[in-house]
Each structure stands twice: as C-alpha cells, then as structure tokens.
C-alpha cells in the first residue's frame, strides 16, 4: 500500500508538472494517467473522467457485445481504444504493456484489488489494430476480392 501511495504522489506530481489535471494530491481524478501516454496530452477521457472512473467496465462490457454481435468497431468505448490512448511509453519510445506493474490498467486495479483476465487475450500494446483508414490506404493498390475472370467452364 505504501509503495502505491508513493507512486500515486509521484504520478500526481508528474501530472501537475505536465499540467494534466488540477489535482496535486494522490488519487485525484486523472492521477493514474501515465505522463508518457497520449492521454496525458488530452483534457478528458472518452466520457467525463469522474464517470469513467466509476463506470468504465460497464461501458467496455456494453461495447464488447456491440462489437462481437453487431460488428460495431472503432467506437470510443472499445478496449482497443483504451489501450491506444492510455498505454505508456519507455525512454526509447516503445510502448509498455498496459497491464504491467505500475501501468495504467494495473496500478489502479491493484489499489482497488480488482482482478481481470481481459489481457490474457487482448493485446496490451497497440499492434495490428483493426482495419482503419491508414491500413485501407496501404492496401489501396490491391484489387480485393478476385475480379471475375473466365471460369473453369468457360476455358
């Protein structure tokens, strides 16, 4: 517990230095956001931060079914979105696994003693994200599904 508190204070200080969040005390809203993450440069989470702290799992779970059954992806409540915005980076600019010790999805859960297995399956760093505009552009020279050529019967 003591170490977590120190970490909290440290993060709060770092956050304060970077001008993220106004709280300069441990466990204030936004204190768990890592200074090296994209989130550190932004004002708000995908929903009001206070709401996110309390309800993020409901949102993710809802989004999970929307994606798996409805095929709705790229929505801001998806798990891959949390990872890409909240993942921290080391000095070399390489992403650090988001569920590693001290990282965003782990530190607060450790504090709150929450266990979750999502990252047994889900990528912990952004890598090979779903089809998106950048990927689409990279593939633009390919023709996709096979053009209709003469069929076996015709040749």
């Amino acid at each position: 517990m003591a170490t977590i508190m120190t970490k909290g204070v440290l993060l709060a200080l770092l956050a304060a230095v970077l001008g993220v969040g106004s709280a300069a005390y441990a466990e204030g809203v936004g204190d768990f956001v890592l200074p090296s993450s994209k989130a550190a440069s932004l004002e708000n989470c995908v929903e009001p931060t206070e709401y996110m702290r309390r309800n993020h799992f409901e949102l993710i779970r809802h989004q999970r079914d929307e994606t798996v059954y409805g095929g709705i992806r790229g929505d801001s409540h998806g798990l891959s979105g949390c990872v890409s915005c909240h993942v921290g980076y080391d000095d070399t600019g390489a992403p650090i696994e988001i569920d590693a010790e001290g990282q965003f999805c782990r530190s607060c859960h450790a504090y709150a003693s929450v266990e979750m297995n999502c990252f047994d399956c889900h990528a912990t760093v952004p890598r090979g994200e779903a089809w998106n505009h950048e990927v689409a552009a990279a593939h633009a020279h390919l023709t996709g599904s096979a053009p209709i050529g003469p069929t076996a019967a015709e040749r």
Partner: protein
Amino acid sequence: MNHENESMNQGRRDFLGAAAGVSAAAVAPGVFLHTPVANAAARTDPVTDLHRWGLLVDTSKCADGCTACVDACDSENGLNLQSKPHGQDELKWENQRAVWIRKVKLQDNLTGHVTNLPLMCQHCEHPPCVDVCPTGASFKRADGIVMVDRHTCIGCRYCMMACPYKARSFIHEQVDHKLTRAPRGKGCVESCNLCAHRLDSGDISTACAEACSAEGHQALIFGDLKDPMGPLRQALAKTPSRQIRQDLGLNTGVRYAGI
C-alpha cells in the same frame, strides 16, 4: 441468428440485396472490386441480414503448393504469432496450432487427377456448431458469419466435434503475442470469421481472397450472397458449384467449383 430458410435466390431478398448494394463498387469484369477507400468507414449500426457473406472457391485455379491464402490469413489474424510450447513435439504442435484455413489436396485414385482447395469455416446457414454449443458462444451473426464469442466460450469443444469440416481450432496454451484486431487466449475455440474486422470497417474483402488475387490465381471470390449484381453471385451464376457435404443440408456460405 434468424433460423428461417435463407434460400439464395429469394425474390424479395434480391430486391433488398440490390438496394443495399448501391454503395458497393459497380462490378464489371476488370473493374476494381474494392469498395473505394474514400468511402471506407466503420459501421455505426449493427449488422443485418440484408447481406450474407460468402466465398466461391474455384478449385481449378487453386495452385498446387501455393499457400498464399493460408499465409495471408495467418498474418491478418495473428495466427503466425503462435509459438510452440517449449519442449513440445513438432508433430503434435503442427496438429494443435490454430489454423483458420487448411489447404487440402484430393486425389482421384482412378484417374490420378489432383484437386487442391482451401477449406475453412463454411459459414453454414444451419451451423451444427451453434446447435451444440451449451453457452451460446458459438453463434451466427446476422450477416451470416459464424463465429465464437470468446467471452462466453468455455472451451468444451463440442463445436469442434460437430463441425463436418474440421474448421475449428482450440487454443491449448497461453498466447504471448497477439494483434489488437485478433485477441486470442488459452481455453477457447476459434475459426475463420471472414475477416469480420475488415467488413465492419467498410472494406469488402478478406485477406485470403486478396492474397489469392495478388498471386494472380483468383481462385477465391469473396462477396455478398444476397447481392445478385455483386461479384460472388455473378461468378456463381456462371460457374457450376457445390457445397461440400451438400447432403447435410447446411446451406454453406462457402461454395466450391470444380469438385
């Protein structure tokens, strides 16, 4: 998820299919079949049964020794990131590692004629895997894609036994490396999902068909079984095709020509 019969040539559906197909690229021989990239956008409404996705495999064009579709599937869906558990027998691993497409070679013993074909989930209208699943994890999406919700899969593997095509794999070991678009973990069953992540992002293609086409073989045609003007239906109209194990009456979404 609706279990009414979806014959491929129903009049009303044809109309709906055509109406829904307006955003797809106009298809004439030689014209690019990719949805224009500028239009590619992630969907915001749930998938519907206005589309039913499928494939036509022309086995006469499927080259012996070519693994382009399998390789493309592997890297698209992170299957190439699996690693053999330390100390496991090579042969056992080859049998156990998850694959979504198997390249199958058939030889007619009488004539010696060899046929190659890729075999993947056939995306049945009446999927036996769905019937036997005790948790409902194995399901058919509204647009005909049969898949596993791995959040509710308990790894019982009934579906693997029920599948006449041996299309499903079980993940036996913890997976260290995965792609964001293809989560994967020990204890669940998985299989081809027709690159649903592409479709859902507005890109009407699968990695396998794209790779086959890039190789110049064009043995795989992907498309909408409910769009009479689309590439798949056009090709099906021109080519005699069958379902593997047609006798089972599963009405598969994957059809084969030349067998």
